[in-house]
Structures are given as C-alpha cells and as structure tokens.
C-alpha cells in the first residue's frame, strides 16, 4: 500500500512538472509531402503528367520495367538514375517554389526512342487547387 502511495505521489509530481513546461509549438507551415509512383519503360513514363502545388514536396518513386533509365527535371537540380527491372525503386524529392510547368525527361540513353521519354509536372498555387 505504501509503495502504491509513493508511486502515485511520484507520478503526480512528474505530471505537475510536465504541465509547467511551455507548450511545444507546431511549425506554422509543416511541409506537405505528396508521394507519386512513376513507372519507366521504353519509351514512356507512366504517369507522364503529375499535378502538385507550390511548396509541396513531391516525392517521386521511380521503378523501371526494363533497362536503366534516368529522370531529370529540366531546369532544376532534380536528377536520378532509375535502376533496372527487378532492382529497388529510386526516389527523388522536388519542392517547386513557383507555379508553372516543369518538364522531365529520361536522362540516360535507353534505346532508339529515348527522345520520346518525357513528361511534365504541373505546379499550381495552393489557392488555385
């Protein structure tokens, strides 16, 4: 019984201490993450159009159905190699700061129709969505 009383007192003291701490502030704009799975195969990305909003972190998970491909968003630093069929997916993050259309393309020569492997990320302002 004494042990139980002591435990209750200790628990009350801990709760009182925690209650006295200043509340933890949540960040005002917690970055949103949007996951997108994209498959790559000669000579198509599917989907080839991705929609998102300004400030959202686009986490693109890329998997190949055949050979090694590349994924590069034109005019940005986002670029990654997509391993061959059967290997793990490659993941690249892209957080657009401005609305607009960002084209992406295969950046590793993958065959006779390599030049057709393209797509677009359409970024709108959050208010427009």
């Amino acid at each position, binding site marked *: 019984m004494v042990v139980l009383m002591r435990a209750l007192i200790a628990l009350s003291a801990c709760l009182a201490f925690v209650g006295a701490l200043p509340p933890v502030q949540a960040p005002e704009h917690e970055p949103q993450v949007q996951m997108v799975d994209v*498959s790559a*195969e*000669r*000579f*198509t990305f*599917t*989907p*080839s*159009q991705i929609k998102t909003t300004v400030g959202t972190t686009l986490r693109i998970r890329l998997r*190949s*159905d*055949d*050979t*090694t491909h590349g994924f590069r968003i*034109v*005019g940005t630093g986002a670029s990654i190699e997509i391993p*061959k*069929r*059967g290997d793990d997916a490659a993941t690249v993050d892209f957080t657009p700061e401005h609305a607009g*259309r960002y*084209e992406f393309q295969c950046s590793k*020569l993958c*065959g*006779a*129709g*390599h*030049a*057709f492997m*393209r797509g*677009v990320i359409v970024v709108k302002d959050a208010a427009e969505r």
Partner: protein
Amino acid sequence: MDFHYNNEQFADGRLDFHRFVLLVTHRFSDRIRFVGELEVEHAFVEGLEQSGEVELEQAYVDFLFSRSFNIRAGMLLLPIGIINQRHEPPTYGVERPFFDTFIIPTTWFEAGAGVHGELGGGWRYQAYVAAPLNAAKFNADDGIREGRQKGSEANASRLATTGRLEYVGIRGLTAGASFFVGDSGFEFRPRFDVPVKLFDLDARYSRDRLELRGAFGYISVQNAGELNDSAFRLSGVNPNVASGMLGNYLEAGYRFFSSRRLGEVGAFVRHEVFDTQYRMPAGYLPLNEFNRQAWVVGATYWPDPDIALKVDYVVQRNRSTTLASPNSFNVGLGWWF
C-alpha cells in the same frame, strides 16, 4: 547487339552477327538535341545488301518547344507499328516478327521532317513528311520492302506523309494507329502515279510477368497492274506486285521464373499472317507461296534485364500446293548497354 544461329529447313545452319548498333546523342541545350543511330548488319559490308549493310537509321535534331509541339528534322525512323521505333534486342523472338519484315518494312528510316508531342491524357502524336517509296523495287515476295530509299539521295519530287497517334495513359499499355501515304511511281517513264497507302493498328501490354502484343496492317498499291506492266518492260521480269497486302500477329509471353540473383526466364507463342498477294490487280493471279502464316514458340532467359539468350522454333505454312515454306530453329544472344 544481336548474334544469331539460324537453322532453316532445306538449308545449312548459319551463324550471323545480325546487328551491331551504335547510338549517340548530344544535348546542345535543354531545348535542342541530336540523336544518331548507326547500324552494321551481318558484320561485313561488301557493297551488296546480301553481304551486309551500314545504315544510318537515325540522325535528327529535335527542337523542343513545348510538351505538345516539337519539331524534328533529319534521318527519322518512321512512326509505324511497334518494332520500327522500338527494336532493342532483349525481348522475345530471335528474329523480328514476319509482319515487321513483309508488311511493315522495318527498319524503315527516311530523311524527313515533322512535328511530335503529347496532347495530354496519355495521347501523343507524330507527323512527318519524308521521302516516298520507290515502286520500281516492289515485288511479290517482299511487298514494298525493297522500295525504301533509306535517305540515300532519295527522290523527293513528291514527299510522302506519315504519322502516328498513340495512347500510353494506362501503365503498361501502348496502343497506336499509324499511316503512310505517298506516290511511288517516280522511276517509271512515262511517269505515272503509284499511290501507296499503309495503315496499321497495334497494341502492346506488359505488367509484371505478362507481355502481350499484336498488330494489324494493310497496304494498298494503286495502279499495281500498270506498275507490273512497266516493270516488265524495264527489266523483263514481271514482279507480280499486289494491289493489296495484309498482315497481323498476336503474341503472348510470360516470365515463369524470376529471381533477383539468377535472372528471369519466359516463354512465348506468336501467330502471324503475312500475305503480300492478298489483292491482285485485274488480270493478275496471286502467287500462293506468298500467302503465308507462321507459328513461333520459344523461350528467353534474361540473366540481366539488358541481356537475352533466346531460342525459338518457327513453323511456316503457305497456300501453295508445290512450294513449301521452311520451318526453322533459331538461337540468339541479344544485348544492350
């Protein structure tokens, strides 16, 4: 790269380094780029096609304006069917489908220019003007195949038009419709029109271990009777060119073994129809040995997704009562890097 062993009925087996392909690209900027493809066929070039060929299959510059509108000019692969623009070796079948030899004359490349782009919703298009076919080279067996000018000092007095509309909006599915229209009678004197129209429908689907593909094609050659008469006067041989040629095929493949360490093994079956004497001009009879069908069964082992060890057996039949089409056993090693 494609290395083959072909053992055809009624003939000796042959070892052939069929294709050695070099692809080069250069990006002048994010908006302008060059693509080139140089191919050596049958390993040795002596000046005649039977001994080998060096082919400049692609050498074009792309001007990328937007997703929906881009301009391409130079040596182009015509946008017809599945194989012509997508012929990397690590796939099923030692040789390309007969359909893609006798109906669609792959690899079909010509000097030309045009536009391409994506329309949204998974639709994309290509449309080009290019050098036409030369009808003086058509024949009963190969159809229009020998009429390709291959961008080599090609007669361009009347340009041909070609295009393709394609749907890729569902993962793993590519479905398309293609056409080619051109006047091909420029070599005959007196000159007369030989309009050639080719229409193709095709689709392929792959998901996980399953791969399906199929195609249908029809070729119309107008004034084929006059063409045959003129060719006979020129060479003394009547080519018996048809006014209609037809082909189709269906193929199904399944990868029944898959291991990260050992690779994958798949089997396939394909049925083909390829009739280069389907419709004859008035006064001409079809040569039935060129009304052909084939069953192709085989397997492919991929130790790596870019390397394929292929084996298949081809059973060919035709409508002739006197001339048999040969069956064949084929082994191939294809790789890409």
